[in-house]
């Protein structure tokens, strides 16, 4: 099977990604790379964006999966309060889906069963 995969390049480091833009090797992720991926998604990274991205990376580190949106909302509420753990607020930050788009920026695989 031939895939139309290309790569991100930042600071001389070439990081392969799949046809949807997800990193092939999550070990290659850097914050600079996150900024580049965000740019290709037309997202300007604010502190609120980083909060979600960092949360997803911590969750992945602990459980080896990216959470479903429902779980993301629930866990963000627990950690940061109702204002941050709000589906509407998360979609405002990541219009194409918080799990899907934020995971891409976080260098994680596409979430299982994500929407």
């Amino acid at each position, binding site marked *: 099977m031939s895939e139309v995969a290309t790569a991100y390049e930042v600071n001389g480091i070439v990081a392969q990604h799949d046809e949807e833009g997800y990193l092939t090797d999550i070990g290659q992720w850097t914050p600079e790379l996150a900024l580049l991926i965000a740019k290709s998604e037309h997202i300007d990274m604010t502190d609120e964006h980083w909060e979600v991205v960092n949360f997803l990376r911590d969750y992945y580190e*602990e*459980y*080896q999966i990216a959470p*479903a949106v*429902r779980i993301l909302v629930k866990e963000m509420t627990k950690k940061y309060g109702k204002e941050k753990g709000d589906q509407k607020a998360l979609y405002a930050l990541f219009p194409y889906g918080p799990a899907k788009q934020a995971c891409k920026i976080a260098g994680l695989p596409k979430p*299982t*069963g994500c929407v």
Partner: protein
Amino acid sequence: MSEQPSKKKFLYINRKAPYGTIYALESLEVVLIGAAFEQEVSLAFLDDGVFQLMEGQDTTGVGMKNFSKTYRALGDYEVRKFYVEKESLAERGLSVENLMPVTYEDEDDDYAEKPSIILVDRAEMAKVIAANDVILSF
């Protein structure tokens, strides 16, 4: 939440060692996807399936992702009953101390951490299986 008429009791039976075949990982993926449908989901571990919950798994030698950590996320997905068969453990020289702790947070009890693993003998396992509506065996 009110009881929905379409809500069914799902039991995923895991009978194979975690690596070497794709069964354990596939089962886990189906559980995660299925959890989005808000059904009542429980897991059962018997035969070599008990190895899936072994503490301290290291997959560097086989080049596969160590997905054992993911079982500990299932509490977030309201999957909170892991029935483990006593005889299967004993036949493999294992006891519950060899299994990783899996817990869930009980929101009705001030988010207290409670164990998800429930040890049952073979006769009790038969009853657990009989009490579920949908049985998926991996």
